[in-house]
């Protein structure tokens, strides 16, 4: 044990403090960093872009560089984390929401990313699972939750949207069957699901491609009379559903309005504009 290296003095010791103390002339910025000629607050009040970053030589200051790495790491994890559908099933079940779970034909995340066509198709035995769970008598609409490109979007935001949406759909006379959860699903996987269940309207909640500023955005696509091969121009999209974006309760209000209109008028997509009345101010 005598070969053990000497223990450095604790950081709080006077010797250590002297060794690491900055030179007296150091300013608030590290001397190597050149601040932006225009202060950050004068530009940042107008945009969320990464402006007035300053520079270290030609390159980014370390804090800015680390901030970017943080945001990218969050986005990468959103793409590559698997949604815990069992846990989501339990949470929804606890609120009395019945679910059915199926998979697309994409076998894993790598294949899902490479083969969007497979993410639009249901696995072989899914239709049997669905018709078994649906029981007798078909509902007019089906809510589908597909992982898409962000697990966080599903885990953080999907339950809130569904719980706000179900009573509003019921009020509008729109019947729904079990909520269908899809592993490795794309938007169009809602089409064969609706066909299997005999639903006239597919409401697909899906994790959006994460950006650096938000990795948990949920998207919602409504399609009247969905069937395989439906063009995107026949779908209505509500995007950026998250805290800090379109709040889940507000999104649910828009979805319910569009759902009722789509079923009443027999259209969706370009032929159906989002003209939901603004939310009532409470109090």
């Amino acid at each position, binding site marked *: 044990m005598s070969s053990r290296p000497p223990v450095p003095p604790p950081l709080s010791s006077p010797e250590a403090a002297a060794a690491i103390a900055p030179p007296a002339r150091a300013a608030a910025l590290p001397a190597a960093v050149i601040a932006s000629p225009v202060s950050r607050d004068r530009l940042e009040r107008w945009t969320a*872009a990464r402006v007035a970053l300053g520079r270290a030589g030609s390159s980014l200051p370390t804090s800015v560089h680390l901030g970017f790495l943080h945001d990218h790491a969050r986005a990468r994890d959103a793409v590559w984390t698997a949604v815990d559908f069992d846990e989501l099933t339990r949470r929804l079940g606890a609120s009395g929401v019945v679910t059915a779970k199926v998979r697309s034909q994409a076998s894993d995340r790598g294949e899902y990313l490479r083969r969007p066509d497979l993410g639009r198709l249901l696995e072989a035995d899914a239709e049997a699972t669905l018709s078994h769970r649906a029981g007798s008598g078909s509902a007019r609409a089906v809510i589908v939750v597909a992982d898409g490109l962000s697990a966080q979007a599903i885990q953080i935001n999907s339950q809130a949207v569904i719980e706000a949406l179900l009573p509003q759909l019921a009020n509008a006379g729109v019947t729904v069957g079990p909520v269908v959860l899809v592993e490795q699903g794309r938007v169009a996987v809602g089409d064969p699901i609706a066909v299997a269940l005999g639903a006239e309207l597919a409401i697909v909640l899906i994790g959006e491609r994460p950006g650096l500023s938000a990795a948990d955005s949920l998207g919602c696509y409504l399609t009247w009379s969905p069937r395989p091969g439906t063009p995107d121009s026949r779908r209505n999209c509500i995007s950026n559903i998250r805290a800090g974006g379109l709040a889940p309760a507000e999104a649910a209000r828009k979805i319910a309005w569009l759902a009722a209109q789509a079923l009443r008028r027999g259209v969706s997509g370009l032929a159906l504009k989002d003209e939901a009345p603004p939310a009532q101010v409470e109090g």
Partner: protein
Amino acid sequence: MAPQTVCCGCDEPAMSHASTVDGTRWVFADLKDLLAKASPERSGDHLAGVAARSAIERFAAQQALADLPLRAFLSSEIVPYEDDEVTRLIVDSHDAAAFAPVASLTVGELREWLLSSLATASTLAALAPGLTPEMAAAVSKIMRLQDLAVVSAKCEVVTRFRDTLGLPGRLATRLQPNHPTDDSRGIAAALIDGLLLGAGDAVIGINPAGDSVADYVRIVTLLDDIRARLEIPTQTCCLGHVTTAIAAIERGAPVDLVFQSIAGSQKANAGFGVSLAVLREAFDAARSLRRGSVGNNAMYFETGQGAALSAEGHHGADQQTMEARAYGVARAFAPLIVNSVVGFIGPEYLYNGKQIQRAGLEDHFCGKLLGVPMGVDVCYTNHAEADQDDMDGLLTMLVVAGVTFVITVPGADDIMLNYQSLSHHDVLAIRELTGRRRAPEFEEWLRRSGLSDQTGALVESPAHAAGGALAKAVALLAEPEKSA
């Protein structure tokens, strides 16, 4: 030993595309199949079902392609002439006299010619109208990244509007100050930030969130106002649809460059809502304004591998060949700038950093070889297997290859399109590494404005520079907003 034959199922055609590897004879159905199988691996060709199924099959195709005479490309169409106006444009505008010097070569011999001292800036420029996009794509498929860079670096494509782009030793940038709602102040703030970091000599260009004529007019008016007040020798652009631009020009809007996304087939272009006739109309409208001061190259095009497949307009061809055909469209309209948005399209077309890097170098090479002023949006999305390190490698290779321009955004984060392009800083760093300078007119403006020194390096405290552009620029943000 008689070779074993692996065939696509066809009867071996009269003009055989075949080669023998280790005793196995590989036969390819036609030129389109040969080009697809010879393509270095990328996810989009698997998605389309046209990729080689093994490394040996890919090699067999590359070997057969290397032995193919260039003349074969003049009698074999990837997309039928009768069905496709892009093919008609390529075939009808082929310059047989320009082709003559290489007419007797095979694809493999063209590679050697391009790498040799016979290929110079002037001989390459003279050859460009004699090469078809398919020839350019073919030779690129048997070239390494280093080959692509060596040949691209010899190509010289110079274009002009308010400054001069593509001169040797130069590198320009598109300043892309996008905003998610096209807010005028938000655009202006990011624009000023980019100018302070020396960006914007290729173009100051906005991707609009909406595509209304009113928004287009507001955006180009804003950009032109800033450009004119600061007297910047550059050009501005709103990257709305070409028909929106035509409508804005009819309303008298200050339109410098007219933009359009284009692809390599009539059907894919129809997916973008354009035809050659519509592009011709836009070209005539843009040039009629004569807003350039040192030249009148008034078009800006974006392209990208996978665009044709995503529009189901690929006709069974590989995505890199279809991309080269888009340059065949571009060069008919004397553009100021063209860029591939290489990593923007996503992992189903280019899966990872390796595929994005290769595609970026291929696109730049094919564009330059065909005489197009080629830039690249060095970029990726968060669902691609790529990160900033991959972009550093791609940027460095492209700059060594003489890329005309790259796109830069604040902090590498485009908050409107939700993807990562380069930061303004990235280009400062590559200038430091390689000594590449900005367009001469813009370089002089930056120095005159007190933002850079004589060497082009940014000064640390431009606020102290007397009569500089900085105070004027910041004052713009303090003004009450004008209604459109």
